[in-house]
């Protein structure tokens, strides 16, 4: 009941903003500057009827998710390593601070010289996700209860058991929070990287070409697709976490 009320409120807010957009489009009355929502919707429906649209979306999604997944893995590995070895933390901390502070555009332009344009968005996403995951997981590792770790030592639990039974549940919420933040960041930075590098099959290239040929309706349609993908990914991730949480509480032992 409460969930359907929340959904109704969200849809109401969305309808309000689409209404504002429609009103502005009517007032401006220049489709080259601001196409109307119904024109964008019609274009989106037409585009989604083509195989190219889905092919491009799938390739972009795959490329960006690959970069994000590698960023998460590397972030976790770096956090574990820097938590374990203090000298590594000293060595890597400045590097990660630099990566965190450097504008995405600088990375894209620099990396364009070093790697191919097809790989670059993946690399950019990797570089954006890694420090977020590293930072969050490091906090989680540091926040792990020392007394529980001592208990694990006394009872001679294996490293794997300590990782699974002590660190895992303790660091898990920090990792999930990092993944949640990274998802939106990955998608946005990935598409931005595609716009600047223009791999043949990419949403970024379609966005750039729409702007180049003044196809504003196409530009809006692709943007709607990007926003929709981002929202769907976030919902999917939330559902997955909820499902895992439910399985965990039902499974108990989780052997």
């Amino acid at each position: 009941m409460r969930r359907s009320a929340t959904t109704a409120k969200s849809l109401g807010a969305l309808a309000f903003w689409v209404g504002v957009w429609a009103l502005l489009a009517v007032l401006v009355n220049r489709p080259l500057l601001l196409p109307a929502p119904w024109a964008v919707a019609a274009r989106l429906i037409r585009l989604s009827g083509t195989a190219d649209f889905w092919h491009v979306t799938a390739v972009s999604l795959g490329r960006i998710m690959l970069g994000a997944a590698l960023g998460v893995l590397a972030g976790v590995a770096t956090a574990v390593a820097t938590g374990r070895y203090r000298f590594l933390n000293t060595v890597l901390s400045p590097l990660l601070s630099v990566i965190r502070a450097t504008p995405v555009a600088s990375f894209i332009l620099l990396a364009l010289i070093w790697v191919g344009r097809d790989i670059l968005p993946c690399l950019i996403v990797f570089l954006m996700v890694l420090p977020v995951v590293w930072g969050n997981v490091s906090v989680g590792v540091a926040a792990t209860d020392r007394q529980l770790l001592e208990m694990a030592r006394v009872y001679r639990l294996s490293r794997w058991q300590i990782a699974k039974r002590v660190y895992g549940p303790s660091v898990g919420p920090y990792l999930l929070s990092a993944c949640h933040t990274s998802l939106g960041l990955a998608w946005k930075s990935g598409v931005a990287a595609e716009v600047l590098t223009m791999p043949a099959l990419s949403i970024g290239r379609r966005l750039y070409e729409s702007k180049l040929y003044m196809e504003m309706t196409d530009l809006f349609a692709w943007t709607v697709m990007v926003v929709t993908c981002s929202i769907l990914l976030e919902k999917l991730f939330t559902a997955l976490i909820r499902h895992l949480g439910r399985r965990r509480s039902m499974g108990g032992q989780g052997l």
Partner: protein
Amino acid sequence: MIRFEKVALFYGEKAVLQDMDLHIPPGAHVALTGPSGCGKTTVLSLTAGLLRPAAGEVRVRANKLAYAFQEHRLLPWRTAAENVNLVLGDTAATLPLARHWLDMMGIADGADLLPAELSGGMRQRVNLARALARDGDLLLLDEPLKELDPDRRGSVLSLLREHAAGRTVLLATHDREETDALAEKVLVYRDGRFLPL
């Protein structure tokens, strides 16, 4: 066997232990008593290898160590049975044995509850069940009856006494009832050392 030779330990500037010698032969049951903060838990932590002495040497010869901590130290995301099962190999096959130990401690009903859902006394009994389930030849007990209801103390104490037979036991406590029931020898804290009563 536990042997401390000229052991010293400091917390910051404060000396907790100084020139402490201790010898507990295999199978002996020894209690450490003294005021709060005198270093009873510190001796247990040194024995368990959780602390290193600033000076001197600690030697412990034991195949398996079991430690009933003062602060329970239960994994908050695992049920009581799963916490006990952790020291039994953590498999589905060993779970009935974990439940058996909880049953022995009189908390079979709480086996599937998380530590946060248990009272302080119940958590302490899970902590004790975990230590006994470990089946160690060296048993460290830090205030084992603390937080237990008066009507539970007798049964838990007799279970501990029964389990302690044939094992080396080092007990830290203020409680006379515990020392009488579990220890053959009592060491009292005096001037930075634990000396025979």
